[in-house]
């Protein structure tokens, strides 16, 4: 009989009893990230879903040290934590800033840009659920075109495309950028392990479906995280030094975006024309991306 093997470490550093919603992409993201990074890791969270998910004082569902910090300071706090560890001789600790899209695309982008420009030796992870979910689904700079949120109501849905954060980070010429999806844990673990071996600022963007915010069924989280990739909406990438772009998974026959959109209540109001516009946007961005990919 052939032995079954998995590339995903069996060790768990995230315990049960956390407070994530059913089907939370961000909870899965943490579980896989810690499996890859291991116990010699130190986290800081700005205000985000994970401020709550981890558990109320004095409980914590993580088996690594954790510092809760202010909304816009994930990167700057991590820079200080790293400097502190270094000065105390603990130079091998993986210092991770773990933030949502609000804390990354919007209020935290200044501190993130500062850390990236200085090439501070931290891993910055953004679990991207495309709106302020912890405060009750308000739009962020990451909310996609035409999506409903409580501040982009059906009568006036989001009228701008999602901010191209990966491009912004690439412009900082940091050593490593990766995009990952919780539907592809092997790819995710591989990239976190790679990030761990690199010095300097590493940025990882996780597409993180959110059943209450996206108005989806918890059991569809993995399906959605997979469709995001297969529709070319969220390409899986690695970028070295901001210049060397690599596609981790080619999508030769893309699934139409409609298949992704129709599972989500936040897109229920879309007209055929809206869907067409979204499809055209995705196609255009894919072409732009292909021009950057090293063949």
């Amino acid at each position, binding site marked *: 009989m052939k032995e079954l093997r998995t590339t995903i470490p069996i060790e768990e550093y995230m315990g049960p009893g956390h407070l994530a919603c059913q089907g939370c992409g961000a909870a899965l993201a943490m579980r896989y990230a810690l499996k890859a990074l291991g116990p010699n890791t130190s986290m800081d969270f700005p205000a985000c879903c994970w401020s709550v998910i981890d558990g109320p004082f004095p409980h914590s569902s*993580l088996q690594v*040290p954790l510092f809760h910090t202010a909304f816009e300071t994930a990167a700057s*706090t991590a820079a200080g934590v790293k400097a*502190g*560890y270094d000065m*105390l001789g*603990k130079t091998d*600790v993986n210092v991770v800033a773990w933030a949502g899209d609000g804390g990354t695309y919007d209020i935290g982008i*200044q*501190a993130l840009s500062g850390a990236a420009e200085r090439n501070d030796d931290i891993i910055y992870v953004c679990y991207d659920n495309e709106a302020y979910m912890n405060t009750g689904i308000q739009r962020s700079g990451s909310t996609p075109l035409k999506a409903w949120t409580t501040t982009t109501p059906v009568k006036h849905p989001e009228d701008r495309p999602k901010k191209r954060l990966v491009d912004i980070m690439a412009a900082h010429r940091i050593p490593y950028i990766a995009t990952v999806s919780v539907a592809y844990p092997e790819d995710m673990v591989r990239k976190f392990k790679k990030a761990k071996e690199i010095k300097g600022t590493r940025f990882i963007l996780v597409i993180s479906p959110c059943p209450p915010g996206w108005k989806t069924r918890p059991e569809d989280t993995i399906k959605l995280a997979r469709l995001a990739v297969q529709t070319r909406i969220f390409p899986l990438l690695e970028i070295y030094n901001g210049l060397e772009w690599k596609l981790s998974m080619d999508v030769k026959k893309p699934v139409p975006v409609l298949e992704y959109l129709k599972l989500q209540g936040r897109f229920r109001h879309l007209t055929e024309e809206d869907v067409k516009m979204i499809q055209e946007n995705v196609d255009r961005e894919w072409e732009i991306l292909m021009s950057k990919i090293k063949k």
Partner: protein
Amino acid sequence: MRKVLMGNHALSWGATLSRVQVIAAYPITPQTQVVELLSEICADGTLDAKFIKVESEHSAMAACIGASATGARAFTATSAQGLALMHEMLHWAVGGRLPVVMGNINRAMAPPWTIWTEQNDSLSQRDTGWMQVYCQNNQEVLDSVIQAYKVSENQKVLLPTMIVLDAFVLSHTMEVVEIPEQEKVDEYLPPYNPPYKLDPKEPHAFGGLTGPDGYFELRYMIQEAMEEAKNVWKETGKEFGELFGREYGLIETYRVDDADFLIISSATIASTARVAVDVLRDKGVKAGLLRVRVFRPFPSEEVRDVVKGVKKAVVIDRNISFGASGIFYQEVKAALYNEEHKPPVFGIITGLGGRDVRVEDIVEMSEDVLKREKPESDIIWKGVRV
């Protein structure tokens, strides 16, 4: 060793002698020399520290907080707008019970743009829970940084400290400063090693969600720490005196023993007032001076003890709480309110935006107050051209 130092460099020297391990700072006039000298000291290896050149004061304080949470000794310096930008993180350092020490150069707030001295920047942070020390000369600036780490890192205290000095009057003014020997400073200030810190070998979560059943007690504990800090400032100030020959208390008094007229002030106005006291004495007024050095925790008992014995007191404020009065004035009056015998206390506001306050100004305002029976209003304006 003696050196001629500007106040800003006295801060840098204080941080260096305290062997700070992480510095995170952003430039703002009139603070820049503090971090310029520290960059040099770090670059040439004199000080083994990481200097994070952050992109804002908000990030400066966040980085200091992160570093302090690992158990490293962290330092920053700022002024006015920079301090205001840090405001959120000032609360974070206190709630996190992290003994960060910061220099703040007192500069008036914009608009209009200005760079000269006034205390409204630091006094606007009064209720964050930072301890605040208002310095009168560059020697005190240097010494206070060292003392601040000793107090802040005391396990009964664990609160951050702001060392405050007047823009230009101290920050850019050269004075002779005695530089303490490193060995003696090391004896006075051992390395910081908190029992609870970020450490993968012993993981804890810090600052997690706390409901009404826990938060209240955490705030009570901060106030308890502030009360305890009064003793710790006094004890460590005495110990500083024994080791270095310069003793520091919560307040400083001058010619108060037989005084019946008391001038109360802080920072460099207080050192100017010391000369004014001599002038008034020569004119036959039994004047004395009370300088509030540590403003938070507020030395209520010490203030009461001195003020109770005089017939009249005047508080000189280089700050204003708009809609109320001078801020030191409010604090002094509040400390006296429940006393049976208390003298009338007058409140003068002067020198806002860095307008010079001279010896003769203080003599003049004192003579003006001496003529009055009791304060007719909460503010006596001095020197305003209206």
